[in-house]
C-alpha cells in the first residue's frame, strides 16, 4: 500500500540522528552553525508553516518555469524588446546587474543552512531554498542574454558582480555581510526573516505590477515567479528566531534585525526607490516608492515584530524621515556620477516632477532648484557641465555616497579607531560598524583606495578599474539631453 503524503512527510522531514563518532558540537560547530550553540533538544520542535515534499517542489517549479519560458517563447526573441519604454529598459539593466548574481550568493547562503542548520526540517527547507536561488540566478541571466542582441550592456547581468563598480561594491559589501560571511542562525534571521520576509516583496511584487503596466510581460512573469519561491523559503526565519528568543538571545536577535533592516533599507532605496520613480515610465507607476514601502514592507514588518514581542529598531524615526527624501537624494548622485554606472539615468521631466511633488509634497521645494541648476548647465555647456568630477564622500559601512537625508540636512558622522578616521552616512551605519569593528574595519571604500593610491584617481582610468569601457558602456543621460521640454524657457530662481 502506498502511504499518503501526510503519513510519511513528518518522518521524512525529521531525520536527525545521534552522532556516534563525533560530538554534536563537532558536527555543527558554533563558528558556522551559529550562536547561541544549543543541543539539538532546543531545535527539535523546529517547524515550517508550509510543508513541501520534493515531489511537490519539482512539480511546482516545473510549472513556474514553463510559465516564464512560455511567455518568452510566445514573444519570440526578436520581439522581446519591442515597445519597451527607454527608461524601463534601463531599469531592467539596473535590476539584472544588481540582482542576478546576488541570487547566486543567496544559493551559497541556503546551502550553508542546508548543511549547518540545526534541525533536519530546516536543512530540507534550505536545500529547496538553494535550488530556488539557483533558479533566480539562471532566469535573469537567460533574459539578460536574450536582450544582449539589442543592448550590449545587458552583459552586466553577469558581469556586474565581477567588477569594482561602486554600486556593485556596495551591494557585495551587504551580501557578503548578510549571506556569505554569516553562520546558519544569523543567515536565517538576516536573510530569511528580514530580507526576504521584509523587503523582497518590494523588489519583486511591486516591480511585477509595474512591469505589467510597462508591457514587459516577460519581466513581470520572472519577478512574480521568483517571489513565490522567496515566500516559501523565507519561512525558515520564523522558527529560528523563535528558538533564539526561547533560549535567552533576545538582544542578539534584536541586533540582527535592526542591523539588517537598516542595511536592506540602504540597498532598496538605492536600487528600487530610484528605479521606480526615475526610470519606470509614468504610465507604469501606480503607487510611490514610499507608499509601497509603507504598505508592503513596514506594515508587514511591524506585524512580524509584534508576533515576537520585539522592539522597533531604535532608528525608526530617522528611517521614516528618510522615506520622503533618501532615494531622491540618491538619484541626484546617480545622475551626476552617471558615467560610473552601466545603465542610463534620467533627469525628471515636467510631468514627472508634478507626479513626484504630488506624492512627496516637499519634493519641489527640496530638489527642484538642484534639477533646475542641472538644466541650466545643460543649456550653457552641454553634458560636461552636468557631471560631478570631484570624489564623493563614501560611507565606510554601506559604501554609498554620504548624501542622506537631503540637501541641507546631511547626517554624516565619523569614528576614530585604530589611528584611522572612518566616515559614515548616518548614525545607524556608524552604530553597526562599532558593534562589529573587527568585521568591517579593514575594508576600504573606493575613495579610500583612490586616496591611498590603490585605485586610479583619473576618471578615465577609474572607469577601466570599475570594469566600464568608456564611452560604450558608461551611463548617459537617458534622453541624451534631447527632451522636448528642454526647449521651454529655463526656470528662473
Amino acid at each position, binding site marked *: 500500500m502506498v502511504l499518503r503524503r501526510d503519513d510519511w512527510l513528518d518522518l521524512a522531514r525529521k531525520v536527525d540522528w545521534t552522532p556516534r563518532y563525533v560530538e554534536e558540537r563537532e558536527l555543527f560547530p558554533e563558528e558556522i552553525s551559529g550562536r547561541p550553540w544549543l543541543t539539538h533538544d532546543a531545535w527539535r520542535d523546529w517547524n515550517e508553516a508550509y510543508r513541501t515534499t520534493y515531489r511537490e517542489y519539482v512539480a511546482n517549479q516545473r510549472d513556474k518555469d514553463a510559465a516564464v519560458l512560455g511567455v518568452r517563447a510566445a514573444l519570440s526573441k526578436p520581439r522581446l524588446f519591442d515597445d519597451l519604454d527607454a527608461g524601463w529598459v534601463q531599469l531592467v539593466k539596473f535590476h539584472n546587474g544588481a540582482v542576478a548574481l546576488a541570487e547566486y550568493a543567496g544559493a551559497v547562503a541556503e546551502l550553508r543552512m542546508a548543511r549547518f542548520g540545526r534541525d533536519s526540517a530546516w536543512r530540507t527547507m534550505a536545500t529547496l531554498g538553494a535550488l530556488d536561488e539557483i533558479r533566480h540566478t539562471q532566469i535573469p541571466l537567460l533574459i539578460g542574454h536574450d536582450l544582449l542582441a539589442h543592448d550590449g550592456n545587458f552583459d552586466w547581468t553577469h558581469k556586474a558582480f565581477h567588477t569594482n563598480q561602486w554600486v556593485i561594491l556596495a551591494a557585495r559589501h551587504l551580501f557578503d555581510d548578510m549571506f556569505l560571511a554569516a553562520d546558519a542562525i544569523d543567515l536565517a534571521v538576516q536573510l530569511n526573516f528580514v530580507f526576504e520576509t521584509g523587503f523582497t516583496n518590494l523588489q519583486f511584487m511591486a516591480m511585477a505590477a509595474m512591469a505589467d503596466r510597462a508591457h514587459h510581460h516577460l519581466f513581470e512573469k520572472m519577478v512574480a515567479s521568483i517571489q513565490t519561491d522567496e515566500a516559501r523559503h523565507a519561512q525558515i526565519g520564523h522558527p529560528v528566531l523563535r528558538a533564539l528568543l526561547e533560549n535567552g538571545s533576545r538582544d542578539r536577535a534584536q541586533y540582527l534585525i535592526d542591523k539588517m533592516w537598516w542595511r536592506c533599507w540602504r540597498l532598496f532605496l538605492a536600487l528600487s526607490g530610484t528605479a521606480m520613480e526615475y526610470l519606470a515610465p509614468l504610465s507604469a507607476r501606480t503607487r510611490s516608492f514610499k507608499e509601497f514601502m509603507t504598505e508592503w514592507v513596514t506594515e508587514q514588518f511591524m506585524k512580524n515584530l509584534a508576533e515576537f514581542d520585539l522592539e522597533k529598531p531604535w532608528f525608526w524615526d530617522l528611517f521614516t524621515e528618510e522615506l520622503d527624501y533618501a532615494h531622491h537624494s540618491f538619484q541626484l548622485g546617480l545622475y551626476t556620477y552617471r558615467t560610473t554606472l552601466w545603465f542610463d539615468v534620467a533627469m525628471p521631466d515636467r510631468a514627472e516632477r508634478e507626479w513626484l511633488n504630488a506624492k512627496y509634497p516637499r519634493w519641489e521645494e527640496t530638489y527642484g532648484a538642484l534639477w533646475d541648476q542641472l538644466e541650466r548647465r545643460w543649456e550653457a555647456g552641454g553634458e560636461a557641465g552636468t557631471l560631478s568630477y570631484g570624489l564623493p564622500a563614501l560611507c565606510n559601512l554601506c559604501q554609498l555616497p554620504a*548624501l542622506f537625508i537631503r540637501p541641507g540636512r*546631511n547626517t554624516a558622522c565619523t569614528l576614530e579607531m585604530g589611528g584611522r578616521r572612518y*566616515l559614515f552616512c548616518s548614525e545607524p551605519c556608524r552604530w553597526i560598524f562599532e558593534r562589529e569593528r573587527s568585521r568591517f574595519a579593514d575594508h576600504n571604500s573606493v575613495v579610500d583606495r583612490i586616496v591611498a593610491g590603490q585605485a586610479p584617481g583619473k576618471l578615465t582610468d577609474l572607469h577601466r578599474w570599475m570594469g566600464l569601457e568608456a564611452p560604450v558602456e558608461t551611463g548617459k543621460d537617458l534622453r541624451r539631453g534631447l527632451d522636448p521640454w528642454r526647449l521651454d524657457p529655463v526656470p528662473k530662481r
Partner: protein
Amino acid sequence: MRVYLFGFASDDFVGRVIVTPDQRTVAQLAGQLVAWGLAPERGGPVTVRNEAGGILDPAATIKAAGLGNGDIFKVERR
C-alpha cells in the same frame, strides 16, 4: 602637508572629498568645496563648522582649525 577632508555644503546634495594643503585657510577650503558643488556662482558669505558644530575662523589655517585627515566640515550660506 596635504590632507583629505569631507566637505558638506548646505546647498549641495552630497559630501565631497577635498584634498588640500593644511596651510590653506578655512575660507579657501570653503571656496574649494563650493566650487565643486552645483551652485559655485552664488557667492556670498558662508559659515564653516566642524563635525561637532563649532564655528571655524575663516582666517585660520586648516591645521590651526583642528581639521585633519578624514574630518568633516560643513559650509552654510548665510
